[in-house]
């Protein structure tokens, strides 16, 4: 169906959300990435619910719409509205702050639960310019990322490192996923047995016991 499919002259439109605790440097990462844009347009209007970036990967045109929730992290209920329908997510934490890494884990859990494998994930350990104050061990972060099928990147918006690579990798994976999905939907694979459903319940809450047989 349509442009995500197998056509030759195709362009991809992806929505990417940036998630993470406040002050981990999400905005700086995006601004750094789309910098050429921000001087003239976005900054002068000072208003940008998302920033855009155009890429060309192996002849494929890719348009990224990057959504940043900066400043609204504490509005708890907004998460789903932001990440629903996104193709990729970048989960940013601050390497000097363990709590921010924990927050990333929570986001991964929620995203996987709600969107399954339909979303490509990147985990960004930001502020590596502050390596001396690192509180999140590299090994921990990388093995965690691998365990949830996310790619881990070491970034610093300040020195502009790792950011370009991260977005490029994410874009490539989003393209792959989309092509895969197109393929799958035509060949209806019926294979591996590991697809299971799990209900992650930290605090299982039992609704009103038995006998609740209200008919509907």
């Amino acid at each position, binding site marked *: 169906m349509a442009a995500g499919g197998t056509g030759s002259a195709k362009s991809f439109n992806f929505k990417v959300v940036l998630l993470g605790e406040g002050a981990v440097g999400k905005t700086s990462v995006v601004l750094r990435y789309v910098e050429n844009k921000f001087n003239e347009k976005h900054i002068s209007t000072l*208003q940008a619910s998302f920033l855009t970036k155009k890429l060309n990967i192996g002849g494929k045109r890719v348009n990224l719409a990057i959504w940043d929730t900066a400043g609204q992290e504490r509005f708890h*209920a907004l998460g789903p509205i932001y990440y629903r329908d996104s193709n990729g997510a970048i989960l940013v934490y*601050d390497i000097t702050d363990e709590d921010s890494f924990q927050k990333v884990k929570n986001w991964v859990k929620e995203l996987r639960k709600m969107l399954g*494998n339909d979303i490509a994930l990147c985990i960004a350990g930001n502020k590596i310019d502050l390596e001396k104050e690192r509180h999140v061990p590299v090994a921990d972060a990388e093995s965690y990322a691998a365990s949830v099928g996310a790619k881990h990147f070491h970034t610093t918006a300040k020195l502009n490192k790792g950011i370009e690579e991260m977005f490029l990798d994410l874009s490539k994976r989003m393209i792959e996923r989309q092509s895969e999905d197109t393929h*799958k939907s035509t060949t209806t694979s019926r294979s591996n047995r590991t697809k299971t459903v799990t209900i992650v319940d930290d605090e299982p809450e039992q609704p009103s016991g038995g006998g609740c047989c209200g008919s509907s």
Partner: protein
Amino acid sequence: MREAMEHSLKPYKTLLRKFEGMSPIFSRKQKNRQPLKTKSTNTRGTDNPHLWGEEIKDGVVYNVYLRKVKYFNSVTAPPSNTTRNPISRTNTDPQLLSYSTTASLSGEEYSGIQWETRREYVIKSATLERLVEELTQAMNHMDSSFINIFLNTYQSFTSTEKILNLLIQRYTLASDRHSGSKSRSMKKGTKLLIRKSVQSVLTMWLDENPSDFREPPNYPCLTTLMEFAKNTMLNKELTERCRRKIERWKNEDEITDSDSVCSGSSMNSSADSQFTFSIVEEVDNMMNPREFHQMEEDYIAEQLTYMDATLFRQVVIPHCLGTLWSKRDKEDSIASTVKATVEQFNKVSYLVISTILGDPTLKASLRAKIITKWIHIAQECRNLKNFSSLKAILSGLQANCIHRLRRTWTAVPKDSVVIFEELSEIFSHENNHEAWREILMKEGTAKFVDKSSTIRSRTMRRKSLKKELSSIVHGTIPYLGTFLTDLMMIHSAYPDDILQNGYINFEKKRKEFELLAQIRLLQKAAQNYHIHSDKDFQKWMDGVKIYTDEQSYHLSCIIEPLSPKTPSHKKSQFSFGGTWRRRSAIFHWSSSGSSTSSEDGVSVSSSDSPAPGLMRMSRSSSCSSLSIELSSISSSSSLTPLSPRYLSPTSCAIKVSMENNSDQGNIYKSILVNHEEHTPAVIATALCKYQKDEEPISSYELVQLLPDDEEMVIPDKCNVFYAINQSAPDLTFELRKKQSPSEKRPVLKKRNSRIKLLIKKKSSTS
């Protein structure tokens, strides 16, 4: 660089205009010059001054703008000793740059001069000390703009204590007795002026931003100020004011010790006394404790609005600044007033979710009624211009656990769904929240809801007709989130210290203040609510059980399992910002229920409008798509007629096999599950049948095997009978050893690859 500056010029235009209006120096000149017009004969054809360059002087970097000033008549030249005010003001002699005539400059008369070009100095960045100096000079020139910017943003680069000390220092330096060299070089008149302006700044500071000084328990800055006013400035009035403030705060802070909300609390009482609504009588007749369904929609909206207005008015403006707000403090004290509004917002969202999911046994139609009620409450909030609770309610309705309840949503009346869509459009992300910003512009400080607003639709108008008569003057409560994001953007995009020399980037502060000033205006407008607060409502709200995300999602799945073919997010009923009906959708999402394809449903229809609306989803008509979904559900459930395995309405038989037992063939044991049995009990029965009853129950999990090689893990403490997905042709289960958490991780990913929570109540098919 230059381009960026040109862009940033716009705000100055306004600022400069203000300065012209306010500066007494300027008006003096105007008197001399007769009608003086700054109307454009500018080369650019506007009255925009244009950037000429930068000038650095004594710890200040100025942007210098050139402006042509046109004269009508011959005018008298300004006295040549006009003090140069470097903040942002026109400089005349001796810096006049050009004349249209060649008139001699020698005399006092500039006869025949048509226009002149003047330099205007705008502070770009400066050292802290210089900024404080400018602060007092601005006071001399009644330049409230500079003072406002400074007082509302200084917390992002320094502390109250520091500024206070610098001001005190400046005062002392200008005292007659001071013997420093710098002091001696000052004229007596200048000294007097400085002392006067320091006093004015301090007074204004305490008046406008009293919360800066509210530092319980000892109020060190205010105490310092009081001492200084008493002993040095001999300002009895200010001393008295400080004393009274300390006294009052001490009382208040003792009472509400744990209450983090500061200042403005006196407003509450005044608002109480002003109430004009007469809901009270009606309220008193209602039963106690109150139930959600017993409360009128407009009553709930009003009560929420009262709470929001109170909190919003108490927001300490500088707390919204990116630097302060984004601080990841572990203590709650920072930006507590902003946090309080966010907490209220979250509370309302959770309230929506709790009321809808609270009773999982409710019929879909009754649950739909609750949703409908919330939609109408949201609408009432809209009428009250309470955008905070409006957005909170909409967010609650769009939360995963509510959003996915398709069967319930189909039972929501169409016109309510339309209202919901329209309300959601207010917060559409389209064009960077254009709709919301527009509304805020139009209605923000207006007293009435803007009836002509494009966002307001016929349905809303129809509904609001009823209220027309009682339409009372309203305030406005904005959704603070967009402001916070904008402020974060400025904070991240502009450096604090451009030259890395310790100069404070004051230009950035100006930009930040533009937004802060808007919030402040809205705060003033928020005083226009006259709602009587009802303590019972607060009590009810506090009494409602709030679920965690996990809990509510779990409940949601019990209420309405999804068909195994469609992961929840695929058939999004609601797109971003709830914009349903599109004019020019760029993304096209197929609404077919095919399982794995989501991205392949994407099409590009327009290439040249990249940013705005990139992600909008196409949906021709919400109702038709809802009915499609309905039919898909009914068809899937019709595949699974109530089979004999249900032995009674309260029990059923399931087949349980043991993991790693498959080599012995497909051995399974039949187990009877009744409607009161929870997971541990069922596992125990199964283990018993396999003669493994000595093994700990908790190390096993029960997994339902579904068609297409899918599985569902039954949660540990779940009521199995209701958790079973009976759409499967066979109720087959597997008992397997739990994996340790470390082993679990890689699997988790795959497991979640298709989340289909298929817990279904048996009743749904009966």
